[in-house]
């Protein structure tokens, strides 16, 4: 997909490289579809990340929503979680967050949110897509057009919500280094420092629209590269790196070692389950089996669903919030019931720090408590028609494991598993396999060779 225009119109919304694939016309039409889809006559909350194209997209979004008769409540440059929190408080029909999150600066995206700040269900997203494709929008008469107002208080109210769940002043003893990647986390954390006096050392904190200090990838490699050398000299207890939208986060321990993004969910599952034993952890088929170990410790269980936020949202909808401990992915994106299930890296950071505080351990010590797993990930370019053949071949090759065919093929054994699935966004096959202890090198190579034999 490198080199293509990146335009993706799907159940998750609209995204692409601005000017190459994603145009102003797409943005305005999609926002008009959303304005048509949601309940008429009620306000819509809009926020954007600092990308320069965000202003362009914002103008188109506001115009479309006004034309559909919605008042626009503009939050300015804020993270998607701030928009979601604002929606939880306001009597609004929905929200649009303009952010390409962890993509590079040349990307942008529209993310559509329901009345309580939730992501759209698969059925809702499908309906929205249909309206977009039909381009039959529900515009109101010239004297019924919506207005627009700026709400400067959303950031503080979001921090109020965090402070109601986490004892923020108790975290003052920690020195924490944070790489804001020139994004919205800088705005949030500066305010947190002002209000609660936390010892947060912010780097790359200038909010930027065009050039980010580095690719906003929340991986162990990136956090080690950016924060590794700073941790010991600064005497920091933990380090965190956010993407531009601060919905994703990566961690470094006190030694400056990057922590695998796979560890965030088990860590927070442990934290949440220790407060509510026996609850359910929702995750996808590609995340670490460490989750099952953690769940067993607290009498909980793991529900695995296909990859993608949509499947997780649909699974969540089948349970009452108090039955769920946590939901998330191996990418480090985690949702907690306290915040009505939204991916929020800032909340994840405070949950990890709270855990460190409660257990009196450093991040490195916390992580050392868990059994060691090794995960290997690869991808193979494959034409779509060949996918079923590959999957059937693999199914026949591993008859002794536990089979799950809800998203490609996942085969698991007591100490290891693999998952082979088709990417939602690129014409590739993803191969993931994990084993307790040493890396499952041989299994991984066999799977990769098999996949390559079909390409």
């Amino acid at each position: 997909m490198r080199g293509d225009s990146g335009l993706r119109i799907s159940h998750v919304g609209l995204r692409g490289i601005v000017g190459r694939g994603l145009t102003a016309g797409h943005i305005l039409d999609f926002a008009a579809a959303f304005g048509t889809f949601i309940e008429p006559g009620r306000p819509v909350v809009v926020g954007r990340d600092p990308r320069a194209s965000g202003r362009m997209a914002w103008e188109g979004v506001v115009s479309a929503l006004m034309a559909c008769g919605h008042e626009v409540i503009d939050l300015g440059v804020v993270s998607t979680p701030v928009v979601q929190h604002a929606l939880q408080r306001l009597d609004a029909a929905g929200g649009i967050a303009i952010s390409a999150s962890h993509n590079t600066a040349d990307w942008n995206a529209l993310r559509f949110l329901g009345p309580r700040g939730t992501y759209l269900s698969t059925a809702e997203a499908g309906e929205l897509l249909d309206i977009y494709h039909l381009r039959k929008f529900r515009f109101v008469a010239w004297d019924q057009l919506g207005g627009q107002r700026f709400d400067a208080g959303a950031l503080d109210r979001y921090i109020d919500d965090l402070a109601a769940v986490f004892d923020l002043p108790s975290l003052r003893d920690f020195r924490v280094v944070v790489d804001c990647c020139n994004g919205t986390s800088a705005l949030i954390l500066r305010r947190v420092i002002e209000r609660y006096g936390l010892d947060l050392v912010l780097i790359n904190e200038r909010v930027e629209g065009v050039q980010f200090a580095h690719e906003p990838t929340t991986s162990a490699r990136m956090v080690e590269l950016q924060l590794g050398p700073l941790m010991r000299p600064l005497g920091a207890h933990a380090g965190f790196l956010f993407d531009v939208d601060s919905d994703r986060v990566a961690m470094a321990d006190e030694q400056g070692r990057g922590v695998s993004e796979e560890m965030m969910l088990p860590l927070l599952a442990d934290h949440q389950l220790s407060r509510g034993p026996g609850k359910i952890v929702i995750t996808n088929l590609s995340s670490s089996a460490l989750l099952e170990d953690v769940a067993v410790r607290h009498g909980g269980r793991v529900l695995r669903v296909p990859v993608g936020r949509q499947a997780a949202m649909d699974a969540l909808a089948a349970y009452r919030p108090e039955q769920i401990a946590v939901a998330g992915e191996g990418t480090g994106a985690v949702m907690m019931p306290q915040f009505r299930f939204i991916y929020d890296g800032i909340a994840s950071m405070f949950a990890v720090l709270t855990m460190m505080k409660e257990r009196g351990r450093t991040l490195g010590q916390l992580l050392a408590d868990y059994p060691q797993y090794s995960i290997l990930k690869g991808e193979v370019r494959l034409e779509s028609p060949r996918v079923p053949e590959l999957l059937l071949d693999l199914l026949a090759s591993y008859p002794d494991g536990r089979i799950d065919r809800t998203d490609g093929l996942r085969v698991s054994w007591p100490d290891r598993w693999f998952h082979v699935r088709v990417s939602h966004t690129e014409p590739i096959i993803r191969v993931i396999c994990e084993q307790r202890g040493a890396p499952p090198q041989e299994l991984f190579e066999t799977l990769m060779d098999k996949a390559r034999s079909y390409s």
Partner: protein
Amino acid sequence: MPREHLLKIGVSGVRGVVPEFLTPSLTLHFAQAFGTYVGRGRVVVGRDTRLSGPMLQHAVNCGLLAAGCDVVDVGILPTPTIQIYVEHIRARGGIGLTASHNPPEYNALKLFNKEGQFFNQYERNELIDLYHQSDFTQATNAEIGYVTTDPGLAKAIHIDRVLAKVDVDRIRRRHFRVALDAVNGAGSVMTPGFLVDSLNCRLDAIAIDPTKVFPRIAEPRPDTLGELAALVLKTGAEVGFAQDPDADRLAIVDENGRVLDNDDVLALAVQRALAVVPGPVVVNLTTSSAIDDIALAFGRKVYRTPVGEANVVETMQAVKAAIGGEGSAGGVIFPAVQLCRDSFTAMAFLLDLMAESGKTVSELVAALPQYVRKSGKVAFAHGRLGGLMQALEEGFPEAEADRSDGLKLLWPDRWVHVRASNTEPILRVFVEAKTEEAAEKLYATSWGLLTA
């Protein structure tokens, strides 16, 4: 069957009923085409007070940013003020969101080039081609610019230019009692200050709230200015001024509450302008012959153009005109201020004439060359237009014919001008003569030929 033009992409830009026909999407694409055409750089965007203005402006901003332009948002301002500002800050161009005198459900994009003038026909055609080709500049994140807001400079620049062309002290000393109807339009944000602070008038104003809808039919005409006429009589004002929603056009009420003929408003302005600047006069074919008489008195030439502000402006530029305008449309174009219709220049000229002469408005009008004008409309069926024109021409073989815009037939003391409307299948018929009787006769004969 008469077609209603709910959307028109044509000579003066794009105009339509919002948002059903002039949709945010179409507006965005037109703005992006405009941005592509003028190139990367600053584009001034302003609007009149129509309720659809903010919604459309967001779409315009979106399209301009997507084309890699920077937006200079001047908010609610008169169209001439926007045009002057485009030129003053050396922007790439400008877009005015205003449907001028059209009803409130309409809006339009008025397009200005870097001189702050309406696009000429070549520029318009190129832009419309570009729009249809959809081959727009698509700026990447690194190429996308900014939206900045004008700190209020534009009004002062416009007013200073107007004041430089009249005897301000003379006007200020008279402390004129003036009435104003700004139709809650863009004039609301500028005209009261202009009259009171700059020209020291005693002002009684109605409809100067830019947050409200138009309280009357937007076009300032005798039948829409009853309230202003009543205000003039009630307050004993020496003159009443009425603007259209984007304050480019002006109607005048005399001290007796009578609304002046727009041709007389132009004639007064021409009188004033020719006294202060050199150059010929340019008016459209339908404008009164009074202009020829006045120009003759100053030894100046008169050029006639097809109807339409853009046509007048184009010729004015080419011949370096002193002043120009369109009688029936109520527009005074004075290039020493800006090559566009400007109600502020027209107001200042009239007050200056009154201050200089000591005469009342009705006395000034009475001193103008006197003509009688009549006008009307004839509906025609598709395909019949050519035949009607021919019938008229053949009916008056002795007259001099001008076919540059419809058909104008001239005699030394009278004329008839017939042209098809741009927006409806109707013929507009205009007649002017020295006497009521002659005008009546010419009108009746023409009507007979056109409806036979």
